[in-house]
């Protein structure tokens, strides 16, 4: 669920040391990274858990992807080796093979215009130092290009990793656009395409300190929080964000409702995306109580608005609401979900939820409210999110939402 390219123009430079921070800037997207590092003696390929102690080998160029949706493949032809990583349901083996055999420009053209790559984003490196980074013509995945002084070219799914590697974001690829080159050139191909970037990127996946397709993720979330407040027919005294990734929405919500925003919870785990963690139900519940310990006193006899940034099974929210009612004396608990209803698994692999666990797919809002034991419930209106992004030149994909 994320891609990275770190390409240094001087081959004695160690891109691995910089790419390490780039991957750290993507690790909120998943628990496993696959990578290939190119040095004077060829490729080193590996994988790691970026939440553990880890590191990258030395080399002047690195590509990396957050698995499981990002997949790596290699190919060899006439002594040239290629490593490709594709994010999304597109044939990564084919891309690697094409790049091993063909002229770079032809590969780039195939990537941006070929139907089999249309949904995906891809990066690839060849042993002769050639690279490519591009988006299929209706790619759901964003990709930004950046530079680091006179030293390096960077590419990443969102802009925060580029900045963490010391670089500056310079250009956001559109749908059907790729850059390719080596030490001696940097070119671009562009076919008519659209920025069909997934709405899930803005709603949930990207960091609030990133731009995605040139749109500030933070500004999007705060504005959506405002929109939620405007349609939420609830009298509240206090607003809290659950978990802390929902805070930009909660800020907008509180601003529009003219009520106090409080830090409702303290995490013992740091910024972990429990929804993405590869753990059992029991473990997830354990993580929740560690992640969401309520601050005493602020809920007592108050009408609370909880702004949550995604509801899948509703389990997190239900647990929190119960705790606020049982132990913290909350009078009313109103729920504002800052994502539209998620009703199916993403066929492009942007989210990998189990469809049978999607509460919004099976229950009416009324029943969801009953399950959560909430006094009221609103979801982010899809049209508001789409309208906001259209105004910024993005035509978001909303296939899994309602």
């Amino acid at each position, binding site marked *: 669920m994320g891609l990275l390219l770190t390409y240094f*123009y001087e081959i004695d*430079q*160690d891109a691995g*040391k*910089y790419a390490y*921070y780039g991957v750290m800037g993507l690790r909120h997207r998943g628990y496993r990274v696959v990578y290939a590092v190119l040095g004077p003696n060829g490729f080193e390929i590996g994988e790691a858990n970026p939440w553990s102690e880890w590191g990258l080998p030395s080399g002047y160029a690195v590509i990396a992807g957050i698995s499981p949706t990002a997949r790596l493949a290699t190919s060899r032809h006439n002594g040239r080796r290629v490593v490709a990583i594709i994010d999304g349901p597109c044939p990564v083996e084919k891309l690697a093979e094409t790049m091993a055999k063909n002229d770079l420009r032809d590969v780039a053209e195939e990537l941006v215009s070929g139907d089999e790559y249309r949904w995906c984003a891809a990066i690839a490196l060849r042993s002769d130092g050639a690279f490519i980074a591009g988006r299929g013509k209706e790619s759901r995945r964003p990709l930004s*290009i*950046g*530079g*680091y*002084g*006179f*030293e390096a*070219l960077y590419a990443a799914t969102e802009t925060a990793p580029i*900045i*963490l*590697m*010391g670089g*500056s974001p*310079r*250009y956001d690829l559109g749908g059907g656009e790729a850059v390719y*080159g080596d*030490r*001696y*050139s*940097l070119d*671009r191909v562009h076919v008519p395409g659209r920025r069909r970037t997934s709405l899930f990127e803005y709603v949930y996946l990207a960091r609030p300190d990133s731009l995605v397709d040139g749109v500030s993720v933070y500004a999007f979330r705060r504005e959506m929080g405002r929109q939620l407040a405007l349609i939420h027919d609830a009298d509240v005294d206090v607003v809290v964000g659950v978990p802390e990734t929902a805070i930009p929405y909660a800020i907008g919500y509180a601003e529009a409702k003219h009520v106090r925003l409080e830090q409702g919870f303290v995490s013992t785990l740091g910024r972990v995306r429990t929804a993405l963690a590869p753990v059992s139900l029991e473990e997830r519940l354990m993580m929740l109580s560690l992640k969401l310990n309520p601050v005493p006193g602020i809920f007592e006899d108050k009408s609370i608005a909880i702004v949550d940034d995604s509801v899948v099974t509703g389990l997190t929210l239900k647990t929190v609401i119960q705790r606020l009612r049982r132990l913290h004396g909350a009078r009313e608990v109103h729920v504002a979900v800052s994502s539209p209803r998620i009703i199916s698994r993403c066929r492009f692999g942007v989210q990998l939820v189990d469809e049978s666990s999607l509460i919004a797919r099976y229950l009416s809002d009324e029943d969801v409210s009953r399950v959560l034991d909430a006094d009221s419930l609103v979801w982010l209106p899809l049209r508001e999110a789409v309208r906001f992004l259209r105004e910024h030149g993005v035509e978001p994909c909303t296939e899994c939402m309602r």
Partner: protein
Amino acid sequence: MRPSLPRVLLVGSGAREHAIALLLAGSPEEPEIAAVMDHFNPGIAEVAEKTGGRVYLAKTTSADSVLLVAEEYSPDLVVVGPEEPLFAGIANKLREKGFTVFGPDKELARIEKDKVFARSLMWRHGIPGRLRYKAFRDPEEASKYARVAGDVVVKPARQAGGSGVRIFAEPYEHLSKLARSVASEYVSAVAEKVKAKYSDMDYLVLVEERVDGVEYTVMTVTDGDSVVALPVVQDHPHVYPFDIGPETGGMGAIAGPCWTLPFITEEEYSESIEIIRKTIDALRSEIGKPYVGALSGQMMLTGFWGPTLIEYYSRFGDPEISALLFLLESSFLELLDRAASRRLAGYKLSIKCDQYVVVKAVAPSGYPLERARARGHPVAVDKDIVEKLGCELLYGGVDKNSTGDLVSTGSRLAEIVCPSDKGFEDASKRAEKAIAGIWLRDGHPLIHRWDIGSRVLLEQRVAMARRARISYTRRREKGLMAIYDWVPGQGLVKYNYE
């Protein structure tokens, strides 16, 4: 041939000198133009032929060779284009022999050649827009310093054709150890290189504080007393689009409309000119001679001080001067001649205010990292394609090989200059089309930057300049013209920039 026509001898063989030749040829005085060049530039040769002049091939860094040519041709004015002949004292020699020369004596051209001299002059005379620096004679000492300094720019102490400068940015502390160890290795490598190559330097390497901001160039013409500023031009030093990749001598430029660019205010332009004027005065007082020629400032609008001087050029910038081809209204000959003969007082330059100009350099793939790859490819040109679009083609890194064919020298091959009264994007689009007018016969690829003049790039510059302006305006309003550091154990250190 009418004997009354002024005769000009141009020294140099690059795209800059081609631009100067065209600017001179366009002057109403209709001068006859001859050129002395190191390698054969067909564009300059064409201007010489059309104006009734001729070309000489000679080593332009040899004062005796150039003098021989000058004595044979007997020009009314000699214009020295590149810096190396100036460093070699060509202007001194010709002046001694009574020629009227546009181009500073070598003691004054030191402002470009010797980076330590330039920075220290600024501090001695309190010239605004200066940066903190430290100069080293010993590679090891330099390396030690770079290891602790952090967030620095490393420059060879001697001008080396726009290359050798590397920036070790530390926008984040987590990168500092990494950046410092690379900087430390690089600084000693540069020092060893300068030591081995040049025997004419006190210092080997300069480590300077790094600043952020928007870069632009202000070129001036001076006779040592009066200063005439040319319009602001922006160069593009990165080799690849989006400002990515290694540093080059400049992959293109934009200028217009009128005196300044959309992201530099009139006031910032005036302050930049003032920096150059003060430099000319400082040189006069230290060297005891007037600076006669072009003095240019590669500037940066920084959040610290506003207009800040990055480097001086003792000549016109390349590709910056090319933009003037479609902006100048006055006689270029009169401008250079009045400067050279020290009669510049009262001169008023006029330019066109409805033109946007885009310059794009074209280079053989391989430039700048491996010039051997870029060298020796046969060059083909269809000037019709360029001229039909209203553009101009300037020859740069080309030469005749032993069989008389035009081949690439490994540097920037040519420049395409296009004007528009509609905007930069229109000029840029035309330049993109005009680039089809030059190619390499053996199919070796050419590179250029298609993003120069694009809206995306311009918007980035505007945003960057706005941020810098917010920051330096606050400093000025509060009168904060010093930087304070506190080093545990050493106490408070004040750097006064007033």
